[in-house]
């Protein structure tokens, strides 16, 4: 499924305190805000007697101090390792004993914690989540063990996977000089040096109600949630120390863009090619450009009907698989990626040539009405299919909130997609996909093509 809402605008934190007004058949969204700054978004879905309780913090790896890469993600792990009232390891065990599941994730721009559980257990989830927002105990012995766990995680996700190593090296160059050049999980040597003092400092600043958004989806309404939120979250003290402004690249040209990042690695069996384009920061002013970018990526990708597949796989037989993906849901510079798995006889140059030709074609000539209609149909219907899952809904609205978007902005997205014209897509290709804004990567087992 296409993620609904690959979009955002600006940092202006405008709060909507009333109910949003979706289309008559759209999802119901209710919002509120506590006096201590905690925002609340409720997405009622009465079909199952289950809720998804998520607490999102406006802090991610891109907010880490220089030299402390990995602390945001490290910290996420420590949130499970004991508070004043919850013994280490007991958080998840208590959730499980009550019939629920929990987890958390960290990204460049946010960190989120969630539990999925029967509705009647929601008060206890709130009680526990509120407890670890301000009463975590950072024990140096536990920090040391958890650091080993995270190094194992890095080995599994990155160091043992040539493809992840290539992406990491590409982003280091693509986003040079900005925070996105550093991987979310952190550099290995910097993770190894993280300690309890780093964690404590990070915690005090960012884990506070005025830096968080509570999202609850499932068998509840705001009327159910608000009294509970008042009980458990209203007593928490705000930190009044929001994250610092970051450096955003406005000159999007990439240094040495013409020399690809090459990784030759004997562990690779299927050679692959990829290119990342650095996108401008998404703001309130360029929303329509990014709506066009979503349609653009769909025209290029679009599964078997997309342009890249038809050209590289069906007609030219250079690739066994291809794709395009716009990740503009970032606070700073987003990315648009195109990629291909090489057919046995194909060379990296042939793939690049074929890809360039497809981009050039889009820059020169607007796509046909039929292509645009098909792309819009996929994108707009993805917003309907997303409503089938309370977890997806909580994820979409929570992520949007982290990027400074209101629920109303999310609901408006389908209308913005509907408004995109073929010429908008052509202009988006021209503006967003100059080769100078990109970096190409080669992943090869032998280095021989």
């Amino acid at each position, binding site marked *: 499924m296409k993620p609904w809402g690959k979009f955002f605008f600006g940092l202006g934190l405008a709060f909507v305190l009333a109910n949003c007004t979706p289309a008559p058949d759209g999802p119901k969204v209710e919002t509120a805000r506590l006096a201590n700054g905690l925002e609340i978004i409720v997405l009622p879905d009465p*079909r199952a007697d289950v809720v998804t309780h998520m607490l999102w913090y406006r802090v991610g790896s891109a907010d880490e101090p220089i030299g402390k890469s990995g602390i945001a993600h490290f910290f996420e792990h420590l949130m499970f390792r004991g508070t004043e009232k919850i013994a280490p390891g007991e958080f998840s065990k208590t959730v499980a004993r*009550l019939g629920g599941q929990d987890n958390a994730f960290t990204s460049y721009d946010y960190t989120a914690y969630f539990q999925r559980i029967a509705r009647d257990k929601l008060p206890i989830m709130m*009680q526990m989540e509120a407890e670890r927002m301000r009463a975590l105990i950072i024990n140096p012995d536990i920090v040391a063990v958890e650091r080993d766990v995270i190094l*194992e995680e890095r080995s599994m996700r990155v160091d*043992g996977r040539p493809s992840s190593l290539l992406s990491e090296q590409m982003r280091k160059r693509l986003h040079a000089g900005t925070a996105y050049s550093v991987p979310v999980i952190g550099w290995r040597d910097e993770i190894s040096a993280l300690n309890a003092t780093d964690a404590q400092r990070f915690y005090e600043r960012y884990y506070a109600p005025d830096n968080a958004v509570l999202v609850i989806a499932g068998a509840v309404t705001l009327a159910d949630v608000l009294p509970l939120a008042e009980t458990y979250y209203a007593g928490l003290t705000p930190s009044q120390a929001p994250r610092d402004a970051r450096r955003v690249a406005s000159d999007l040209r990439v240094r040495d863009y013409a020399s690809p990042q090459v990784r030759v690695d004997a*562990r690779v069996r299927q050679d692959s090619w990829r290119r990342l384009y650095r996108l401008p920061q998404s703001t309130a002013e360029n929303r329509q450009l990014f709506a066009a970018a979503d349609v653009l990526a769909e025209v290029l990708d679009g*599964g078997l*009907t997309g342009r890249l597949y038809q050209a590289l796989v069906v007609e030219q037989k250079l690739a066994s698989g291809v794709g395009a993906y716009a990740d503009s849901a970032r606070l700073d510079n987003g990315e648009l990626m195109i990629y291909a798995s090489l057919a046995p006889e194909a060379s990296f140059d042939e793939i690049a040539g074929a890809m360039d030709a497809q981009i050039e074609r889009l820059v020169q000539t607007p796509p046909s009405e039929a292509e645009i209609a098909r792309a819009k149909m996929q994108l707009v219907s993805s917003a309907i299919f997303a409503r089938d899952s309370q977890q997806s809904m909580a994820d979409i609205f929570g992520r949007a909130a982290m990027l400074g978007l209101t629920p109303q902005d999310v609901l408006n997205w389908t209308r913005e997609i509907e408004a995109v014209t073929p010429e908008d897509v052509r202009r988006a290709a021209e503006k967003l996909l100059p080769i100078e804004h990109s970096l190409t990567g080669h992943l090869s087992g032998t280095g021989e093509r």
Partner: protein
Amino acid sequence: MQRYFIPFFVTLYLAVSPAQASPPVQEVHVRDLSAWMVSEASLPIFTLEMAWRGGAATDPDAKSGLSMLMARLMNEGAGDMPAKAFQQALADKAISLSFNAGRDEVTGKLRCLKRYQQTCVRLLKLALTAPRFDAEAVARMKQEQSSAILRAQQSPSALASSAFLKMAFGAHPYGRSKDGTQASLARLTRGDIQAHYHNTFARDNLKLALVGDMTRAQTRRLMRDVFAALPAQANLPRVPDVLATRGPKTKHIERRGPQTSVTFGHRGVAYKDDLFFPAFVMNSILGGSGFSSRLTEEVREARGLAYSVYSYFLSLEHGDLWLGSVASDNKTTQQALDVIRAQMRRIAKDGVAEPRLEAAKTYMTGAYALRFDSGAKIAQQLIGVQLSNWPLDYFKSRNQRIEAVQVEDIKAAAQRLLADELLLVSVGQTPVSLAK
């Protein structure tokens, strides 16, 4: 802040009343066809899950990968529409139609917006009754599958698990990859695919599950319109039952990298065995419940030896396994395995205490409801339960059967099922020993 807190121990004494897991499931019959359905009209969409018994286990030995290749081709053109035209017709109405091959079945999944129901049903029928298998599409899907075989060879965990299945099942079809080998794939012809299609897509081996904005009458009509046109009987070779080979046995595949990835296990337990539920609960405590499992506690939380460690039962139509997996630094892989084996011995020797069993039961019964909180998930449950040969009352009886498990059952299940004679495959730089 203090005053907002209920003491935490209070929560542990609350009467546990798991949410009613499953919504009402109806059984629908049309002639010799049957389907399980949940009619739910709050969103204008529906999902249809289909499964035909057969799958990769029925591929001839020299032609492994045949079911998978056929499945890849089932949405690549039908009737008078070649692949591109067919895919465009689907995309124009945001219809998602895909097929896949499992070890014991070929599955299909259709997801539609209600307002395009007619187009959706028409295209599904066309795909099922008049697939084209054009030479162009066959060549392209062979290339895609060949690439999938290569990709599986570059993932340490995929390498370990495929080598493990080969070790456990030997020459039985379960020992092969569902994608086949480069050699078997190259041998497959359009004729093979055509024949396998006629042999697989029938009525007597078909299971159906439908969830969403469809009435009972509309579902009956869909079943009649689409599936009544299929042949009455499938014509597939009988797959023999198989017992996994006995350990101890190890195999090491050398691969550069910081970690060694290990798959270990041995014979498992069939769904129909009386020990299945005790074993299921026992494994949840040992390695099946994520953050709450003993393996996570001992390997990850106490020692920092791994990010991911787990175990599970794999119950196939003709054979059963208990499997586990861990990836640890080359320097600590042996230690991680020793800790895992100590936990296996511990649960077999001492069983579990009552509170731990109760916690496992409230987790398993409570979390069951989380599998039914979206239409797409409900459809997966409805087809999955049918494929496991459980009756319709499984959605109610499952939790009762978990509740009925007693502490002595856990110990008995562990003693009978957790043999220490493991089969083990390691991929990395540390050959793991079972000597200790």
